[in-house]
């Protein structure tokens, strides 16, 4: 079944690249949203929840880690699968953000195959 997706990243370029990579990965996505920061993401999620959220960590104002905690407080988004997409690669940080409620982690640079591998468990 097709899924809805939100990409949260402060870089418009990175949002486009992620969008293209998702397209190349062949995953069945029927609706995509974008947000340039945590506040915008929360507003959009509140209006229309998504199945999968791809979330940057290194963002000004609200970091991706804080955003994960806030999303988990939204009743509409308890089932949203959150996959972090970041250049940050320390195991400690990955463990922490998963403990905070994220469901997976993709490190930059990435490939369409990586997206396929990490997202397909959430496509059913």
């Amino acid at each position, binding site marked *: 079944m097709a899924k809805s997706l939100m990409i949260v990243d*402060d*870089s*418009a*370029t*990175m949002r*486009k*690249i992620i969008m*293209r990579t998702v397209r190349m990965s062949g995953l069945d996505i029927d609706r995509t949203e974008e947000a340039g920061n945590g506040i915008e993401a929360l507003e959009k999620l509140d209006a229309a929840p998504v199945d999968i959220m791809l979330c940057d960590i*290194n*963002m*000004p104002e609200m970091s991706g880690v804080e955003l994960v905690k806030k999303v988990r407080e939204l009743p509409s988004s308890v089932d949203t699968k959150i996959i972090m997409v*970041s*250049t*940050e*690669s*320390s195991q*400690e940080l990955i463990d922490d953000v998963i403990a905070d409620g994220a469901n997976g982690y993709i*490190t*930059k*640079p*990435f*490939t369409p195959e990586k997206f396929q591998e990490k997202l397909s468990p959430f496509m059913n």
Partner: protein
Amino acid sequence: MVDEVCLNDALLAGAKEVFETMIFMDIEESSEPDRQVEGDALLGSITFKGNLEGCLTICCGVLCAKTIAVNMLGMDSGEELSKEETHDAIGEVTNMVMGSVKSRVQDSVGDLEVSIPSVVSGRGLDSSLGDGTTKILVKVGIEDEYIAELSLLYRASSR
């Protein structure tokens, strides 16, 4: 402690990984060490701190930066590329190369905290960090056409 050769290798390997997987361009250490980045250029930089502190920079000509942005965004050659998009692309390349270098030196240096990247444009751009700094400079040829300078400025942390 980490040595210059190790950082040099990490810088080159990190940049190669990013260019090959995200930009679809081949880069090689330049065989023309005297060749400089000429004319209008962009310089992306990102700072880090931990056991080492310093910054990583990537400098290339505007034309090279535009080609990188077009490739990263998967744009058709006819599409217009804005100045913001080009700057943003170079910032993200800098961010990703830093991320890749960081994961390569994690075992020897420990974890590094990384800033948000910034990009400046101009001519004859150079970066410096002050006393006691070591500078590693790697010149790379991109697709046998462009030249880019990668640098890593660092010193042992004072904390």
